[in-house]
C-alpha cells in the first residue's frame, strides 16, 4: 500500500507541473484512486469533489504556479481512506491546516523550477536536464506528499480525545462544496443572465431526475 501511494505521489507531482498532463493530478482523480487503494472510495470521492471545486477556480498561466490542490487532495484522501478521521471536527481542523501547508508545497515547486534553471544554465545544449527534471519533480511529490501525510497523522494523534464532534464527513463535504460552487459558477465565462437561467434549469432538472 505505502509503495503504491508513493508511486501515485510520484506521478501526481509529475503530471501536475512537469510532464504527462493526463490529469491524474486532479483532486477528484487522486481521491478516487486513493479510495480504490484504501477500499473507502465512497467517502474519498466526496472529499475529492470538494477539493476539485476549490482547485478549479485557478488557471495555470505562464510561469505562475497554481495552488497545490493535488497536495491537499492526496493527503486528505489518504487520511480519509485509511479511517484517520473519527470526527468531523478533526476533518475540518486538518483541512484548514492543509490549506496553509498548501503554500509550503507550492514553494517546493518553485525550488524545483530554480533547480531546473540551474541545470539548464550549466548544461545548456544537453538533453539530460529533461530526464533530471522529470525525476526531481516526481521525487518532490513523494517527499512533500508523504511528509504532509505523516505531519497530519502526528497532528491527529496530538489532538487525541479533543475535537470529537460530528461523524458525517460526507454531508459537511457536500455543503462546503455548495458554497464553493458559487465561485465556480462565477468562474465559468458565459453571459450572466443566460448563465443563471441555465444553472437553475440544471438544478431543477437534477432535482426531478435524481
Amino acid at each position: 500500500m505505502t509503495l503504491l501511494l508513493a508511486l501515485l505521489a510520484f506521478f501526481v507531482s509529475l503530471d501536475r507541473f512537469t510532464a504527462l498532463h493526463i490529469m491524474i493530478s486532479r483532486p477528484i482523480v487522486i481521491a478516487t484512486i486513493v479510495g480504490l487503494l484504501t477500499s473507502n472510495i465512497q467517502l474519498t470521492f466526496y472529499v475529492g469533489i470538494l477539493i476539485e471545486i476549490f482547485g478549479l477556480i485557478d488557471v495555470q498561466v505562464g510561469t505562475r504556479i497554481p495552488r497545490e490542490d493535488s497536495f491537499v487532495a492526496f493527503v486528505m484522501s489518504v487520511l480519509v481512506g485509511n479511517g484517520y478521521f473519527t470526527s468531523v471536527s478533526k476533518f475540518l481542523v486538518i483541512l484548514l491546516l492543509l490549506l496553509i501547508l498548501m503554500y509550503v508545497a507550492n514553494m517546493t515547486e518553485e525550488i524545483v523550477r530554480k533547480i531546473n534553471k540551474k541545470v539548464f544554465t550549466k548544461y545548456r545544449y544537453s538533453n539530460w536536464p529533461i530526464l533530471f527534471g522529470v525525476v526531481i519533480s516526481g521525487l518532490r511529490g513523494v517527499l512533500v506528499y508523504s511528509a504532509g501525510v505523516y505531519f497530519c497523522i502526528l497532528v491527529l494523534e496530538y489532538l487525541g480525545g479533543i475535537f470529537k464532534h460530528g461523524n458525517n464527513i460526507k454531508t459537511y463535504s457536500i455543503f462546503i462544496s455548495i458554497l464553493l460552487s458559487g465561485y465556480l459558477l462565477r468562474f465559468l465565462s458565459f453571459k450572466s443572465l443566460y448563465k443563471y437561467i441555465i444553472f437553475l434549469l440544471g438544478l431543477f432538472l437534477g432535482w426531478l431526475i435524481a
Partner: protein
Amino acid sequence: MANRLNRFFLLLRSLFYTGNFNIENMQGTGFRWLVDYVGKKGHYEISDELLKKEGEYFNTHPFFITFILGVWFKELNTEEGPDYWKKVYSSAFAAVGDSFFWHSFKVFCFLIMAIIGIYSPVVGLIMYLLIYNGFHFYLLFAGFKIGYKYGKNLITWFNLFRVNQWGQIFDAVSVFLLGLLLSFLIKSSGIVTYWHYFLGASLLLLGLFFAKTLNVVLAFMFAIFGFGVLLLLRGL
C-alpha cells in the same frame, strides 16, 4: 515522418518535453529535444547552430506542441524561416490552450465525472480520463501531420472548427451540469429537509456573493470555521 509509428513515438516524447520547465527558457530545452528527434527520424538537415537556437525561450500549451513542430518543419527552408511561425503559433496556442483546456474543458470533464461518480466513482474516473485524454492524445498524435500539411496557414484548420468558441460552449454546458450535480449531490445523499434546503440555497448565494469580493482560499477557510461553529452549536 508522417507514418503512424513515428507519430506514436513523437506523442510519447511530447508527453515529457516539458521536463526541464523553468523560468529561464520555459519549455525551450524540450522543444530542441523534439526538433532533434524529428530531424533525425525524418532525415532533415538541421545545422547545429539552428538546433542550439531552438533551446532558447519557448512556451506554448503542451497539447499543441506537435502542431508547432509540424509548422516548424514545413517552414524550415522557406525565406521567413521556421522561428517566426514558431513564435506566432506558440503564443496563440498558449492562449487558446490555457483558456480552453485549463479553464473550460477541465471543469466540463470534472462535472461529467462527478455526476456519473455519484453512482459509480470508478466509471466516472474512467470517463474523465477517456474524455480528457482522448482529446489530448488525438491532438498530440494528429498535430504534426496537420501542422506539416498546413504550415504557416495552420490557423485555417483551426478556424474550420471554430476553436475560439469552444470555451464558451463548454462553459455553458458546464453551468447546466453544475446545477445538475448540486441537485444530485443533495438528493442522492438524502439531505432533503427544509433546513438543509435553506442552508444549501444560502450557501450557494453566499458563494456567489463572496466570489466577487473574497479570495477562494480565504472563503474556504471561513467556511471551515463557520461549519466548525455550526458543528458545535447544532450540527447538520
